[in-house]
């Protein structure tokens, strides 16, 4: 399964060339020219492994940094790599506070970005992203994914049945299907499978 990277950059040359280089390196690279385009892509392109965004876009000195919060609000918890042509202390501070996983200063070459992407894939995501990532890799159906999230939030089958307006029996069937797909036999093993990989 290909790793999906969302690349947000307003400079056409940089966007296209980095996109091409990432494509050659085996990533599925989704391109966006601004924050609005990025949020649109995040909705339509499925699971995102890593987001790479420029800071200054279209004359807006902070657009890329605000995008981090907007992505989180839209339910995207992927680690964000911030790329910038000029990193002053204020910018670094804001990037850190918004929750960026890495700040990369221009000029850099594609291999440097790929190194950073690999690094943040390993260490940069938060718990929510780890959960999203695990459920994505398990090829669950939408319904199974919803049930799995309830499980990971600590709800019992009866409680899940109530919330989802299903019978407890249906929910139990979904749960065994989830366990089968993940190759686990109990809820404990399932937690371990999701968070300790």
């Amino acid at each position: 399964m290909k790793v999906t990277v969302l690349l947000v950059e307003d400079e056409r040359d940089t966007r296209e060339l980095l996109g091409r280089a990432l494509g050659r390196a085996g990533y599925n690279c989704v391109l966006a020219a601004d924050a609005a385009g990025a949020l649109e892509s995040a909705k339509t392109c499925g699971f995102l492994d890593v987001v790479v965004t420029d800071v200054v876009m279209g004359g807006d000195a902070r657009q890329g940094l605000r995008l981090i919060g907007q992505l989180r609000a839209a339910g995207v918890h992927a680690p964000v790599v911030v790329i910038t042509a000029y990193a002053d202390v204020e910018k670094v501070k804001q990037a850190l506070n918004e929750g960026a996983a890495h700040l990369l200063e221009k000029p850099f070459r594609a291999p440097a970005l790929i190194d950073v992407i690999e690094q943040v894939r390993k260490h940069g995501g938060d718990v929510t992203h780890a959960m999203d990532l695990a459920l994505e890799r398990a090829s669950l159906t939408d319904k199974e994914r919803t049930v799995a999230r309830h499980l990971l939030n600590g709800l019992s089958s009866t409680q899940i049945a109530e919330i989802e307006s299903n019978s407890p029996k249906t929910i139990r069937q979904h749960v065994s299907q989830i366990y089968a797909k993940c190759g686990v036999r109990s809820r404990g093993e399932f937690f371990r499978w999701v968070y300790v990989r």
Partner: protein
Amino acid sequence: MRHAIRDRTTDARLLVYVLLGTLAGVVYVLFDILSEARLESGTLTGAMASAHSVIDRIVPILAGALLGVCAHYLKLRAQLASANEAAARAEALKIRLQRVERDQAVWVLVAAVLHELNNPLHAIGLLLDELGDTEGDEALRSDLVSRARAQADRALAQLTILRSMRTLAEPDFERIGLHQVVGALAKDVGALAAEHGLVVQVDASRPVLANADPKYVRTILENLLDNSMHALRGVAGGLIEIRLETGHGCALVSVCDNGPPLDETVRASLFEPLRTTKTQGLGLGLPIARALARAMGGELSFDDAKKKTFSLELPLGEAS
């Protein structure tokens, strides 16, 4: 230097006074001895005798008062000297502050140029890597080469700005006719404004001389006019007024427009770098403009009590 000469003249005058005082004292002593002798011999008349006794009492009082005046004078002189010293120190500090302001303007510009230089350099690196990976496809190669050229030109443009900053770092203060600078600028900008349906009105009826650097003044005013034109985009009957006047010992150029008022947040951070409401640029125009104004010993301020007005104050040139 002028202070030293004045001090020497005052010292000479003081010596003359002291000599005159001593001479008067000697005359008094002679008069006293003479009248004493005549008093003893009984030849002094009644009027002379009473004058003698009055003078005998008054002179010591006068001498005491004179000593007091002298002491006070010396104290005042010491105070004046320290006041002069403080004024010289204040002047030196002012010059240092101006230098700091100018350095700040240069720094803000350098930061902007650095930012704008990094982007093309970054793209050129990526383009070259891509060229290295592209074999055979001639159309793609020539596209990449022409893009690399365009990025190189972009980098060169930034270097040109960097080069022009050498002159910015060494301001060239001279007595300039503000009416001429404003007139020339209004002529250049007027045509562009007319294309957007805007009117630029200049009220510079009489010559105003300022002690300033014409390059700085032009940069500042260009910035203000550019902002006004941006604010008036889409405003029917858009009008930019440039007024020139003198007052409070300074030359004043004000630029106001009838565009929509600024909202509170924009107003609060108007002169802070990297704040912008435009879709182009980095929000460095006004901070640079203010730093340049202060580097010339002037000020750039904003007021919207009546009309949205930017005021540039500059030190007056001598003949104004």
